[in-house]
């Protein structure tokens, strides 16, 4: 990923400083994070339904 500025120093750096700034990486991370949330809910629902099945 690397430092998003064309320098090896913090001197004169201003603006976004997060990894992937100015590239498509933040969008990719955002989508992955979103998919994790959806996946966690789907997984949780499957496990929860299995628990309830014993009580139906």
């Amino acid at each position: 990923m690397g430092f998003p500025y064309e320098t090896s120093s913090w001197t004169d750096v201003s603006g976004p400083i997060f990894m992937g700034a100015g590239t498509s990486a933040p969008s990719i991370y955002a989508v992955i994070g979103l998919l994790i949330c959806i996946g966690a809910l789907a997984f949780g629902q499957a496990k929860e339904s299995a628990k309830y099945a014993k009580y139906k």
Partner: protein
Amino acid sequence: MEEQLAELAAQVAAIEAKGNMTNTMFAEAYYYLTIPLMVIIHAGFLAYEMGASRAKNALSSGVKNILAFAFVIPAFYYFGWWVYWAFPTGFSLSAGPNEISGAGYAGSIALAWGESSNFMGPNTEDQIDGVFWGAFTLFAATTASIMSGAVIERIQTVGFVILAIILGGFSWTLAAAWGWHADGWLVNNWGVHDFGAAGLVHAVAAFFALGVLINLGPRVGKFNADGSANDIPGHNMPFTATGLMLIIVGFWGFLMACLVVGGEAWSWGSNYSTIYGTPTNLGALTFNILMAVAGGIIGSWVFTKDPFWMMSGALAGIISAASGLDIYYPAMSFIIAFGAGVLLKPCAKILEGFGIDDAVGAVTVHGTIGIYGMLMLGIFGSGYPALLGDDAPTVSLMGQLVGAVVFIAIGLITGYVSSLVLKMVGMLRVPEAAEIAGLDAVKVPAQAYPEGIPASAPPAE
């Protein structure tokens, strides 16, 4: 002489730059500190809900509450913040009079992808968006916690989390865009004034919960065949009362975050203001919050003598005065809050009479009292300018009434429809046998009281 003047000018510029930086750092720290204070609201709701549950459901109620907090945060990061900036003028997504709203503006500052991501992550030139977003995220999480208590002991976990995401990421945010944002159509067209969010947070969340409760139904054993209601006490009243006190502590942070700090490019002026740009300060809040807490407790105590309702009265007191904390005289806050404390239990009983099982009285405390508070400001605050600037819309009873109806509709419709969909796909309510067995035994791999609640060892001699 010219050299001396130049040197002096440079020194003044340096002092001014330092002063500006100090103000910027103060503003950033101000909102940053509201966030942990608002986390205390969630500690309170956690304790409150677990205490209000029967022992067999204590941990499952806690799990549900914790998950709501966890999922609302990314929901607000991914779309809630965008909703707040995109929707102020209505569903047209067009820019408002201040040109800080609409889909174009929201897309440039509030999305986690593209160029907008520069404002949604660490940025040396942006010391406000992170903490603003954080404070609003905690507002969002608070709405989910308000709904959470009402539905305990019979709602499915994932179904509830989906409802929390919709409420925290969309429903209340839409209300805030319309009734809080400087470009909001309710503010500009109707002079709606809801400084401390009695309507746009509390009432929206409570009526969302009511919509869910209609589809969810009451707990097993709550109502008898003749329609009469049974009391289902929680297993730990001290825990519940302490939780309520923690919620009140946290609301100091919540209300603190409703102020706009002065002196910055995004500020309304050089001093504190409300989110509408109208004047206020922390002193105004202090006077009115404390008097409202007292009024609410006393009002509840007079007719109930019950610590649960007394602490609920404290919260109701704050909510009843929240819309006008910036302009009430403290004795007025006390009177309005006293009225809220008196109204609380009878209103909860009326709701129960309709067959609604609101396990913690959330609909009454946050909904009925939130609307009561908005209308009280319409009566007493009529004629006050609702926004900064000449020819500003003014507060009126009609405007507050319109705002209240809109907030009720947003909460009720989105809560009812989303829970109806979950009900249709079997994700809303747990099976009856599971409810009777207790949800901890069904799905929580931990035990609330593995040793029971044993008597403590005798004191040393």
